[in-house]
């Protein structure tokens, strides 16, 4: 038998199981509606869980990117100081981070996909639950218990199928989220234990320490040179003093006046 026929039977079997429990068929409507509301609640929570997980991965990626940028800067500084060995070390560590970042980015895309699917599933279920509520009241008001049976069966198994579908989507999203949380936990642990952190950041970092040692001597030299040369190097230094900036502001002000 074909896959689609078999899958349909699985869903129908589940829907029928729910119907078998009923005594007064009209009670099934209320029972089913309660189930639907619970399901909607669960889906909303599911969407929120996936979103939380996604944000966490985003934060981790940002953190790793910052460290990576820092390593680039360190490599640049090392090159300026003719320390190719240090630059090489920094870039090697950076490439390790880059593969971590790429890996997390792939996971992030997966989570975003699940979040989107689950949000759509929530919207579909919401639409169906709303029309079920209307239908339920109509059936209760218009039909006798005997007459209502067929319509109740239709409505309940129809929505049961939707709930089964949403249930699968939730399970899938949950699996992906758990998988992600385990991985994210590993990255957090790495960062916390210092295995990654010490490579790239903090005062104990040997690249930083060596660069600091180099730059402190060169900073002294630069400052000495600045003192000897007096005013000229200070002006090129980015600090926009009050003296130099005030005429600029005047120009802006006159331009604005002209525009008005």
């Amino acid at each position, binding site marked *: *038998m*074909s*896959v*689609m*026929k*078999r*899958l*349909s*039977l*699985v*869903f*129908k*079997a589940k*829907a029928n199981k729910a119907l078998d429990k009923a005594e007064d068929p009209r009670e099934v409507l209320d029972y089913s509606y309660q189930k639907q509301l619970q399901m909607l609640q669960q889906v909303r929570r599911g969407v929120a869980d996936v979103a939380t997980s996604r944000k966490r991965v985003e934060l981790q990626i940002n953190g790793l990117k910052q460290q990576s940028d820092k390593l680039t800067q360190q490599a640049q500084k090392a090159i300026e100081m003719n320390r190719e060995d240090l630059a090489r070390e920094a870039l090697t560590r950076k490439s390790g981070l880059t593969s971590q970042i790429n890996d997390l980015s792939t996971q992030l895309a997966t989570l975003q996909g699940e979040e989107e*699917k689950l949000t759509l*599933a929530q*919207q*579909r279920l919401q*639409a*169906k639950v*709303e*029309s*079920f509520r209307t*239908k339920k009241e109509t059936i209760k008001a218009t039909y006798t218990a005997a007459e209502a049976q067929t319509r109740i069966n*239709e*409505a309940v*198994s*129809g*929505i049961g*199928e*939707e709930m089964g*579908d949403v249930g*699968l*989507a939730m399970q*899938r999203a949950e699996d992906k989220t758990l998988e992600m949380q385990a991985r994210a936990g590993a990255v957090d642990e790495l960062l916390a234990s210092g295995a990654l952190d010490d490579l790239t950041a903090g005062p104990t970092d040997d690249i930083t320490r060596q660069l600091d040692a180099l730059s402190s001597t060169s900073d002294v030299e630069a400052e000495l040179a600045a003192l000897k040369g007096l005013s000229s190097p200070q002006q090129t230094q980015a600090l926009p003093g009050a003296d130099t900036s005030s005429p600029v502001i005047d120009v802006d002000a006159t331009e604005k006046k002209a525009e008005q």
Partner: protein
Amino acid sequence: MIVRILGEGQYDLDEAGMAKLNELDAAVEAACQGTDETVFEAALAALLDGVRSLGTAHPVDAIDSSDLILPGPGSTLAEVSEMLGDEGLIPG
């Protein structure tokens, strides 16, 4: 006929559309007997594309059971057999 793609929603199909789908479904069925994921993936994707292009979206607020239910896009052989039950076969 109403066909559901899991995780995506329901589609309405006429008889001509269903006839075409049956051919595509046969390919999925054949792929299910094998173990080649790429063959299965391609066959399923073709079947789902067939449903989307030959059918029209069933109103989202309508509560109707589907005549046929299909695994969602990207489903693996393992996932499908899990959905079908441990034995992978439903009597009937």
